């Protein structure tokens, strides 16, 4: 049980970010993180470490999020609220190198809404790639799908978001 604390310290942030981005419900996301820690503890002896602990923890978290989304009959964390990022229990920090003349927070909120209109499998791909910074190979492991599927999900997600935000590209 002593191994739980370093796991939580190192990966708790990424796990919580993934769970809250997917579920948009703080309490449910915390339940997922808790369950993921318990499962990691149970499966710990079988962990071989080929692909890294972080990917493995995110794989458990993503799987639990998918289970919850399948069972869910309502949409938590309304996207109609004035603060879609904060409503999901996320915090927005200034992004380095971003043009300060633009209202990054307002743009990020619109981006959040566009992302949450995506189907869950595309949304989790976008979150893993662009919010958590996983490589395609790490995503294969975390999502349990081939690299072609990872790329096509990202590509379709990006096309849908571009369409949603086409006035930005213009």
């Amino acid at each position, binding site marked *: 049980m002593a191994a739980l604390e370093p796991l939580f*310290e190192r*990966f*708790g*942030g990424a796990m919580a970010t993934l769970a809250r981005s997917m579920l948009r419900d703080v309490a449910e996301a915390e339940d997922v*993180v808790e369950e993921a820690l318990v499962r990691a503890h149970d499966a710990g002896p079988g962990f071989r470490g080929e692909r890294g602990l972080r990917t493995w923890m995110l794989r458990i978290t993503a799987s639990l999020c998918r289970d919850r989304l399948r069972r869910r009959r309502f949409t938590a964390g309304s996207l109609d609220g004035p603060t879609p990022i904060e409503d999901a229990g996320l915090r927005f920090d*200034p992004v380095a190198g971003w043009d300060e003349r633009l209202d990054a927070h307002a743009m990020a909120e619109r981006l959040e809404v566009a992302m949450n209109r995506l189907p869950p499998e595309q949304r989790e791909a976008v979150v893993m790639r*662009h919010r958590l910074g996983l490589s395609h190979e790490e995503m294969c492991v975390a999502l349990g799908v081939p690299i072609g599927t990872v790329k096509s999900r990202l590509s379709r997600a990006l096309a849908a978001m571009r369409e949603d935000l086409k006035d930005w590209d213009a």
Partner: protein
Amino acid sequence: MKDRDVTRDRTGAGDAPRWLELLAGAHAEPEPGTLARARARLAARGAEPAWVRWLARPAALAASAALLVISAWAANAWLSASATQPADDGSIVAALLGEDGSYGLRIDAGGTPGSIRPDSGGTER
């Protein structure tokens, strides 16, 4: 968390639009109570017998499903085998029915309408 700083550098967006970088600006920190709750769950489970813990694992569901399939297959095989077995001539039903369907009664094929059977209770003139 340190983790975020490392991952943000690895976001190779390629030809992705720049606004995708804004996604990396939103993040969350887990609530400290989450670790305590996970620990409490594990501690509570430590007091349970091993077989109860095993029942809670997905392997228990798989094992139950496998047992169900094996039982269904065995029952089906057993029923099929008994259905193809020849009827037991020594059984009571077979003895009662006989092969001629007389239900144990003798049918006189050459009998005339006026004839009286021995067990009819009538008298012969």
